[in-house]
């Protein structure tokens, strides 16, 4: 569950959105880490799409997901942790190696060239 232009048209009363950076601050196909309400969020940009997931690699405990390589598997997109190369679905956060493991995902808003991340209020 991530960036969709129409998501913020729907009311989501429990979410508070924080601006984290300009879209141009995220180079295409790469990620950055944002601090949102004390949580580390890895924010990736693939073309005009932006995805936000937890920055902590559950397999190693290190906050490195934002530094992972992005790519695709089949029809879906993934990010691969730089430490031990565990893959995660970019949209769902699900581990591609161990089904019971997943990264948290965060809703994203794009507004006037800025990237906003939503967190439960």
């Amino acid at each position, binding site marked *: 569950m991530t960036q969709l232009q129409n998501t913020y048209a729907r009311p989501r009363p429990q979410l508070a959105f924080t601006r*984290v950076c300009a879209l141009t601050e995220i180079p295409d196909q790469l990620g950055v880490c944002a601090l949102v309400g004390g949580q580390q969020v890895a924010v990736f940009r693939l073309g005009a799409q932006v995805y936000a997931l937890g920055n*902590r690699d559950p397999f190693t405990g290190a906050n490195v997901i934002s*530094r992972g*390589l992005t790519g*695709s598997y089949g029809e879906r997109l993934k990010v691969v942790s730089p430490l031990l*190369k565990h893959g995660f679905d970019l949209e769902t956060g699900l581990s591609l190696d161990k089904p019971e493991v997943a990264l948290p995902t965060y809703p994203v808003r794009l507004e006037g060239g800025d990237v906003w991340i939503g967190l439960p209020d």
Partner: protein
Amino acid sequence: MPPIPPIALPADPTCPPRRVVVIGNGMVGHRFVESLTPSAFAVTVISEEPRLAYDRVHLSAHFDEPRPDLALATEAGYAALGVKVVYGRAEHVDREAKTVTVRGQTETTLEYDALVFASGSSPFVPPVPGKNAPGCFVYRTLEDLEAIRAGALKSRVGVVIGGGLLGLEAAGALRKLGLETHVVEFAAQLMPAQLDEGGGAVLRGIIEELGIGVHTAKATSEITVEGGQVTGLAFSDGTHLAADLVVFSAGIRPRDDLARACGLATGERGGIVIDDGCATSDPAVYAVGECALHAGRIYGLVAPGYQMARVLAARLSGEDSSFTGADLSTKLKLLGVEVASFGDAKGATPGSRALSLTDNVRGTYKKLTLSEDGTTVLGGLLVGDSSAYGDLLDLTLSQTVLTVPPETLIVPLLPGVAAAPANALICSCEGVRASTLIDAVQGGVCDVAGLKKCTLAGTGCGGCVPQLHDLLGAELLRLGKAVDRSLCEHFVHSRQELFDLIRVHGHQTWNAVLAAHGTGQGCEVCKPAVGSILASLYNEYILKPAHAPLQDTNDAYLANIQKNGTYSVMPRVAGGEITPGKLIVLGEVARKYDLYCKITGGQRIDLLGARLEQLPAIWRELVEAGFESGHAYGKSLRTVKSCVGDTWCRYGVQDSTSLAIQLELRYRGLRSPHKLKGGVSGCTRECAETRGKDFGVIATEQGWNLYVSGNGGVTPKHAVLLAEGLDTATLIKYLDRFLMYYVRTAGRLERTSTWLEKLPGGLDYLRGVIIDDALGLCTELEAAMQRHIGTYQDEWATTLADPDKLARFRSFVNADTPDPDIVFVEEREQRRPAYEHELPLLAMAGTD
């Protein structure tokens, strides 16, 4: 024996699954559990050993380096099947109440509907005085092996009592531990159960040549002991053999004590009596494997045990299946010697005739037992070369009437004459024939793992796995299918093909390469591979916007990521030569940023523990002091290690340090399929250990000797001599060509050693390309290297000059704080990452 009716499953699906308790988790017990349909049963396994099933057939491999994982089962795998494991010893069976009591850390009582003994066997220790003295061991479990390893540390001479199959395996283990090894056998020959006199004699010859003492027709009367430690064996003929370690491997005894205690029928000489359905005298209790006695026979091999396991699993599932005895044919490799026995190996059939070939030149023995008229093979023996085993076993079991003179079956083939096994038995453990495997390949299986999965071939003793590889390769070739060498799901090309495509088409960017040759969005495999190829070809700054997304984290941040997400910084110290001033700078930078310091094997200094946002500041100080990136993070040239050479050393004959610096500066930054390391030694004493490098140069009075394709790591390999007596200019010319040829033609992550191994034609071919210019490539290779040298840049300095790039070196895009989860503790006066178990303590200390 009358046929036993299959046991019907409860017809009512609401019935709870039947509770099956398995005593023992050896190879056969595990195979039984695997063969059951898990959903239909509630299975509990009792394991006396502290670990689940492992491969006992290859036990001596436990002493190999690297140590292979012998495990057959894992707790996670069992959990996934819903199998429960209870660790401990089954101590009591109440057949009335249908319960088993297990003594582990606690006492557990398990209820069963079906109880399966898979308790295996225990080693037989002959009742000789001294058998329990320190220094005496048995050979059965991994714990036994660990005890032997510990004992071997204090020992010089080891003796195995028992010259059978297990005894020779144990002798192999002692030899691997570096002991002077002897084998003592009561019978007049080795492997008396399997071999005849002729086979035993040839086997003895081969084993003695390995340096193992063989003592046959020796009855051990006593283990001599002095001061509580074994000193040797005394034999009944009055002779003595000195030894400080003794391993008993004189046979096995079925573990039937618990079965006996609960009143099950057992054999006079041991073994739980079972029928063709593996049922004991109690129809709710079964036995499989080495603890079972079937038709008066104990089977000490794994294949019959597996057969019983399958029969029983089928029966419990309501299928009709019977164990009616097993073929004892077997093929083994003992101490590296191939030994096989099949059918009527020793000519027990009345009227049978023998045909044998003893070849003391090759060290082989082959014997066939033939029917009286000589037209059918009844069995045979093979020692030293068992390659014909599959075909001969096939002829034996199928009772084929021979169409060729029988002697041609055991005479070595003339070169150029192909053996034509129509449908050879490839895997005798699982009874898989070539036709089954070929069908699988034709059905779409394209790797050995797939063959194992769908045919089970190679999952028993594993002896046929090399044949599986050969068969697969041959069949794929025959089908016109390429063996799959695609880089990943996005590129069907190998790295080498992709390199040529990019070079020939002149693609400059990832987007161009992907659009022309790939699919999808790329991944962690193809992106760095393409990034590396582009860097090898054009040597552009790897963090240019077009290239940055291709780089793995080390290249992306020009430093080596560590387990807690911090990085290590390693400046170049070419040839390992450094001034006191620069050493002081390294020390000062390390002190300022509190970096952990370590001297590396490549004669450099590693500074560890830098946070992402600290990297540019650290580099700036280093670059200002005259350092540059050492490319420790890249799949590229790392270091050229050197000794002090004739500048200082009284033995040196050439200036190795200057050459090492020259080479390191020449090839620095060269992106390659894998890391590259070099070395230069100033004399043949080889203090720079250059033969463990991708390229090594050793000085002689006649000039430089150039060695290539060595490496350390998991499979160390010495570099091999490419050319000798070279002057410096020729040496550099050859090295330019060698490195560029490797960069162009190797597979992804293929070191120079494996690359050379796979190169058709090997070293001679490489010499042809590099020295004789057999492919006419040399000018091009040298020009490519010249281009690389001319376009070199220090990646740290380039990054420091680019504010856009520096913006990437922050822990957070929206905050200038460090990652609060990076926690260090102090050890030996430096920082290191805190271990997970240390974190709560630190948190508590922080609240004080």
